[in-house]
């Protein structure tokens, strides 16, 4: 067997947009790995690398050639191939000729399924050298990459993500001779631009194994994980030197690792007076405009420093620091201008301007939406509070919630919606409840985000999302499959999260009715249809909420099947079930519950029975338990009572024959079991327990 070799392909391009790097690296890996398998080859491992100007793949442990393939062909019976004189017949010779062998290579064996010996030949197809296969296949694989925003350059018709300027392609120490759009592969590539100021020629990569180290010498850290780690370490060190800690942002960290070939984190400073801007504005401005991290002090307040990545090893003249500081100052100057301009008029002045901002074609403007959210808030707030002043404040928050969409700051930084409204109201001296509610009403923004920190914020968030979801469903905008352009599932999830965490007693049916009431005549679909679609939608959201809350599959399934609309009740049942699932008696109980289900499957059991009919001790005990069970209202106590039922149930099934001959007794026993099942179903459908 020939020794295995390592394969390396690198496409060196002009700067590839960061967002395409990983998808392209992954897609080609998948295609390459499928191709390797299809060729009867195998690789011990296939890894990919990328940096702003490079996409590379390395396959370790590829054989030097395809394995030889043997193929056995069965021909006519021996008697037809060999004459009585022992000489080959014409038919025999033709068979040998067909498979390209001499007749002497034909064997006679009795293959499985044949009644007599037949002519058999074994053909060996020689495997081709891997390097030849690669050379043939790679150009097609590269051209076949799906590039989301492809471009042409120069006079060529070739399309790729950015111009390909060099191709490095090795199999062991041998160059794989491929050409893509006129660029022929070599054993060399290019390092960091700064490196080549002193070293004009390309960098030779002697072997695929030395790829990373050779490039590191040439100023490129080609592994994105390595770059990310180095950046994270530098961030931490520099923040500590500034006596603070980095305001974490995993997405920004990924971005920085994708836009530099060699990461150097530089700390810069900005004038202290910009700290008067809200923290969110600073963090957003630094992230969006300068891809910079903020540093916060021990109390959480920002320090007048920032951290950004340079694409080089050092900052010898301090130009990188000075340049970034200069630009940041210009940006913050703008932010301060917006902050000052926006505050020249009360936030409420924007209410009227919301008329010109479309929320959704059928559902009208943001002004219309605001009207609906106010109405919803009124309907729900009166159920949560009897305090008129408190309700008035909730309505005020609902009226102001969308006004910041017409401010300069949100125009510049759309992700600050809500936050700015809250900040401006705070500056205007609004009640803390009101500005906090407005500030947080978009939350939870995702599964990782918290719900608003105040009850009023939760109510506003819920009403805003409910209007969006109910309104969109009512005009036929229903998410399907992977299509959810309006992020209605996220909004629905937010509603369920809030109910779940607040323990409010609104059922989805209540909310749907309230939501559709405010949508009113804007609806284009019949209300019953919309209601049904929304109930299904909310049930899915509730199921997902249980998953997010970390309940085991059996707990979720059996608890949901016993009712999902009363979330507080569902939560209590899930909690109790989860705790109880550890109890040894539980397995027995679940078993018995299933058995009851099976027995009752084909029976009509009424709920009433004469307990005097019951004769055996085991069933009498059971009837007593049932009485206690039915009298227990509390979920936890109910589960406790159920647990105590495990043993008597087991005893019952061991001793009592339910389907006995006496029809009256049989009916009484079936009814007893029926009532027990009803009691179980108040907590969970155990037949779904696995």
């Amino acid at each position: 067997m020939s020794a295995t070799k390592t394969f390396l392909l690198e496409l060196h391009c002009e700067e590839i947009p960061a967002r395409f790097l990983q998808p392209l690296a992954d897609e080609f890996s998948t295609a390459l790995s499928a191709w390797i398998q299809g060729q009867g080859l195998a690789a011990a491992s296939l890894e990919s690398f990328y940096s702003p100007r490079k996409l590379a793949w390395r396959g370790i442990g590829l054989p030097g050639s395809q394995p030889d393939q043997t193929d056995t062909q069965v021909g006519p019976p021996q008697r037809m191939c060999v004459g009585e004189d022992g000489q080959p017949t014409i038919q025999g010779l033709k068979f040998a000729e067909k498979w390209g062998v001499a007749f002497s290579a034909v064997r006679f064996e009795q293959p499985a399924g044949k009644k007599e010996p037949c002519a058999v030949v074994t053909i060996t197809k020689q495997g081709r050298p891997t390097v030849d296969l690669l050379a043939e296949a790679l150009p097609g694989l590269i051209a076949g990459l799906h590039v989301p925003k492809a471009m042409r350059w120069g006079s060529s018709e070739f399309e790729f993500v950015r111009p390909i300027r060099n191709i490095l392609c090795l199999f062991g120490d041998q160059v794989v001779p491929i050409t893509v759009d006129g660029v022929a592969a070599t054993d060399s590539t290019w390092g960091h631009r700064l490196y080549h100021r002193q070293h004009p020629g390309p960098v030779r990569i002697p072997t695929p194994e030395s790829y990373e180290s050779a490039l590191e010498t040439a100023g490129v850290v080609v592994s994105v994980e390595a770059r990310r780690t180095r950046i994270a370490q530098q961030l931490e060190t520099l923040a500590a030197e500034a006596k603070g800690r980095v305001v974490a942002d995993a997405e920004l960290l990924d971005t920085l690792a994708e836009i530099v070939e060699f990461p150097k984190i530089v700390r810069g400073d900005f004038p202290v007076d910009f700290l008067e801007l809200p923290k969110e504005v600073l963090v957003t401005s630094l992230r969006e405009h300068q891809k910079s991290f903020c540093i916060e002090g021990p109390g959480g307040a920002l320090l007048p420093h920032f951290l950004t990545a340079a694409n080089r090893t050092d900052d010898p003249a301090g130009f990188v620091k000075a340049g970034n500081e200069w630009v940041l100052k210009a940006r913050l100057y703008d932010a301060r201008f917006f902050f000052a301009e926006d505050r020249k008029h009360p936030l409420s002045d924007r209410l009227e301007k919301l008329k010109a901002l479309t929320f959704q074609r059928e559902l009208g403007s943001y002004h219309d939406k605001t009207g609906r959210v106010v109405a919803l808030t009124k309907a729900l707030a009166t159920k949560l509070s009897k305090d008129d002043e408190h309700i008035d404040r909730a309505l005020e928050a609902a009226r102001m919630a969308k006004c910041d969409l017409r401010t300069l700051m949100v125009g510049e930084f759309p992700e600050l919606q809500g936050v700015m409204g809250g900040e401006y109201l705070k500056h205007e001296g609004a009640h803390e409840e009101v500005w906090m509610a407005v500030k947080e009403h978009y939350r939870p923004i995702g599964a990782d985000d918290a719900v608003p920190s105040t009850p009023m914020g939760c109510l506003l968030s819920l009403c805003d999302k409910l209007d969006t979801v109910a309104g969109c469903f009512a005009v036929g905008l229903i998410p399907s499959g992977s299509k959810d352009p309006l992020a209605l599932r996220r909004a629905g999830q937010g509603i369920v999260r809030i109910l779940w965490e607040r323990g409010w007693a609104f059922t989805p049916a209540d909310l749907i009715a309230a939501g559709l009431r405010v949508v009113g005549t804007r609806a284009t679909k019949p209300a019953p249809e919309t209601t049904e679609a929304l109930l299904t939608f909310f049930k899915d959201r509730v199921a997902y909420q249980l998953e997010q809350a970390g309940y085991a599959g059996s707990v979720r399934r059996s608890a949901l099947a016993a009712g999902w609309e009363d979330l507080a009740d569902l939560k209590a049942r899930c909690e109790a079930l989860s705790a109880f699932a550890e109890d040894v008696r539980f397995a027995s109980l679940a078993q018995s519950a299933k058995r009851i289900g099976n027995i009752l499957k084909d029976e009509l059991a009424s709920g009433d029975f004469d307990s005097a009919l019951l004769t055996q001790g085991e069933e009498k005990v059971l009837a007593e338990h049932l009485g206690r069970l039915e009298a227990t209202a509390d979920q936890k106590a109910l589960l406790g009572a159920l647990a105590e039922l495990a043993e008597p149930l087991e005893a019952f099934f061991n001793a009592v024959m339910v389907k006995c001959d006496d029809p009256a007794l049989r009916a009484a026993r079936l009814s007893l079991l029926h009532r027990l099942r009803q009691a179980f179903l108040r907590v969970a459908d155990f037949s779904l327990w696995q």
Partner: protein
Amino acid sequence: MHIQELILRLQRFWADRGCLIGQPYDLEKGAGTMNPLTFFGALGSRPWNVAYVEPSRRPADGRYGENPFRVYKHLQFQVILKPSPAKVQDLYIESLEALGIDLSKHDLRFEEDNWESPSLGAWGVGWQVVLDGMEISQFTYFQQVGGLDCRPVSAELTYGIERICMFLGGYDNIFDLVHGEVKTDDGVFPVTYGQMRQREEFELSAYSFEHADLDLHRHLFDAFEKEGWHLLNDLGHFLSAYEQALKMSHTFNVLDARGAVSTTERPGIIKRVRDLACGCAKAYLEHQEGAAAAAETAGKGGAK
């Protein structure tokens, strides 16, 4: 560095590398791309290298001359290289060094920034070039102009002149930049950007935010459009028709800065500009092909 010195160096650099040095086009426009040297130059197969300064007006960016970083009108230095050379990034980097930027001490990055001009029916992919955290240039490979595929593809380099000057000199206020020096018998007088332009910024901002007559501009927009289609359709005149498209574009920008264009109206208005520009592009190419065919026929005739 003085503004005029920066412009002179860029012109020298690109002239030395085989570019024609063009002139700004004498109509209001939002970007150097709108200059016919680029708009028509990027179309068709004829090789075309050109560089020029373009004063660019963005009415909505006006700040009455009070904001140290943002202005109604700024200077772009525009380079078109068709077809885009294989070493176009290296050429661009050399041009920065010609401006005295020692790249061994700076951080230079090419960050994705795709360009699109809906009113010209043009788009391309490329980068914003970021030097020490500041965007100093826009770098685009044109894919379409005037709704037509670019074959071959042009590379467009756009330098923000004031920005680069401010950055190199560490200026905190655009109006402190020095345009150049006036030397007389009495001495040397540096002239600042502020002296040359601040009052203009004030008046033009005031005009586009407050005083521009909305009815007049709405009327002008319609009239330019009518005139443009007349020139294009009835006479086949794509250059004068294109001027009408430029005028429509600027008129729209003024209306927009005045807040007179609603979000729903906007796409429709931009489309009206684009339709005329695309019509001009198509007529230009047809004219070029017709001229080429005529030249070929004449050539053959001569040979006979």
